[in-house]
């Protein structure tokens, strides 16, 4: 209720046409015709995709190791992963400006690494649940004894077996990166959400139409990913 009523209200608002007091798609058409629309949506899209790649490349092997090694640092890492929830975003922005070398600060590629940190609490927990739900030790040992090195074990066994957790992680990280605003503004970068704010100053209905599209497009893309890659192991063929 708390999700759908505001969304439906926003949608209803975005299709209003004040000129004739009716409804229409003119704000959506206006948004698509805006020359920066495609530029910013593509930019935010690939930044979010890069964040997803960084998240999976860093987290899956690290968490696999943490689960297998029964390391005493695991509770500590669990705690660290929660820090982005309690540290203000402005602190990350200032921290990045102080610690990142200048050549990193000069490129928009600094954003995916910071988005990764912001998405960490959610991505970490989603993968943690996935890894806890499988006999990880036996499966990795079976793969290794059959001739798979660590990377192939992760790529051909672990990731496919925890696929639903991986898809969840991809969805959360992608959505969070695509919609991230505060950090981006503080670091003086322009992405799709900051552009929407800018557009809203001259056409509020158009900005809402754009926001609706930015909600619906990722939702459709992620739904398509889930449908295209169904869970083979629970299908049952014969």
């Amino acid at each position: 209720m708390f999700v759908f009523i505001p969304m439906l209200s926003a949608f209803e608002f975005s299709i209003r046409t004040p000129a004739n007091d009716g409804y229409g798609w003119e704000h959506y058409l206006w948004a698509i015709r805006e020359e920066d629309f495609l530029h910013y949506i593509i930019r935010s899209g690939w930044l979010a995709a890069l964040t997803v790649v960084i998240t999976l490349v860093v987290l899956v092997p690290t968490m696999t190791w943490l689960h297998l090694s029964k390391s005493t640092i695991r509770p500590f890492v669990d705690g660290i992963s929660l820090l982005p929830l309690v540290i203000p975003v402005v602190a990350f922005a200032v921290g990045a400006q102080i610690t990142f070398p200048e050549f990193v600060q000069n490129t928009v590629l600094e954003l995916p690494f910071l988005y990764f940190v912001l998405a960490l609490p959610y991505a970490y927990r989603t993968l943690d649940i996935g890894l806890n739900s499988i006999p990880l030790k036996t499966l990795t040992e079976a793969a290794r004894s059959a001739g798979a090195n660590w990377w192939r074990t992760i790529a051909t066994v672990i990731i496919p077996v925890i696929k639903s957790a991986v898809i969840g992680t991809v969805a959360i990280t992608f959505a969070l990166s695509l919609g991230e605003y505060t950090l981006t503004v503080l670091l003086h970068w322009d992405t799709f959400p900051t552009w929407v704010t800018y557009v809203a100053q001259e056409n509020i209905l158009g900005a809402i139409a754009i926001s609706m599209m930015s909600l619906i497009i990722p939702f459709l893309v992620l739904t398509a990913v889930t449908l295209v890659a169904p869970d083979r192991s629970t299908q049952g063929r014969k």
Partner: protein
Amino acid sequence: MSSKSLTLRNISKRFGNVNALDNFNLEVGVGELVALLGPSGCGKTTALRVVAGLEHQDSGSVLVGDLDISQTPAHKRNMGMVFQAYSLFPNLTVEENVAFGLQMRKVNKSLRLKRAHELLDLVGLDSQSKRFTHELSGGQQQRVALARAIAFEPEILLLDEPLSALDAQVRINLREEIRRLQLSLGTTTLFVTHDQEEAMAISDRVGVMNNGVLEQIDTPDALYNKPASTFVASFVGTMNRIPAHITDGVVEIFGSKLVALKRGNESGKVYALIRPESIFVATTTTQGNAKVLTRSFMGASSNIICQTADGTIIQSLMTSASTGDLHPGSSVQLRVLSSEALVAND
């Protein structure tokens, strides 16, 4: 099949304060099936995992043939392994599971699927090749795991209690199948189990382990009939511990004089270790030396539990035909059929 011998030399492995393997030595000949048997925590699984490369020994070396593989990572050891827990990959079909090792060795798809079907045919599951593993029973899953372990023609086959999660009848069938396959392929095999019947039934030799040390390794016959230590004698099969008196290496039990095989005290009080089948229970009309407590009919043989006057419980295994007169409460005369006995001081 390029099977090779396996040698473990002076392997030691500690987990914190626990000595899992203490200067452990083992040799498995080409094409031989050796079982490691022992109570929980004796180090048998650790030994197997050291061979597989899943644990690293603190000292000592592992040799396959003449090649020292102590530092070789697990995925390069070319050993097939079947685990206690079902370890099939749930995202793959049965045939893809069997072909997994070949896929890792970059064998082309048609060849590896052909090989997978050969192996599945060998374990009687070719008709299930397109199924996913959760659609199979426990016994079928372990058959697939066995096929997967031998599909890439490993130099050594390692079996880590592969039957312990299965029902009794499935266990018996599958252990026979493992032995049949192992003999036909000639694969050098190390088999870890805590079930002595399983170990004795299919192994060329059985190693009995205790506290990280190999107490004795021998053929099942020799292990049963000539145990090298009191631990082996008590652990393998059933053994009666009968209080007796020893004088100059001779113990007297129920009126019979037996040569002590392993001398403890030269004279004084000891325990004689006698197998149930070496105890004969005879009915008597006079005052015997024991009373029957129970008689359990087991088909061809019967298990008789008696109690002597001093309270010692004695178990006897006799043919059922000769135990018809034995009823609970009967006064009986016990006799020892063997001429020698292992003795223990405590």
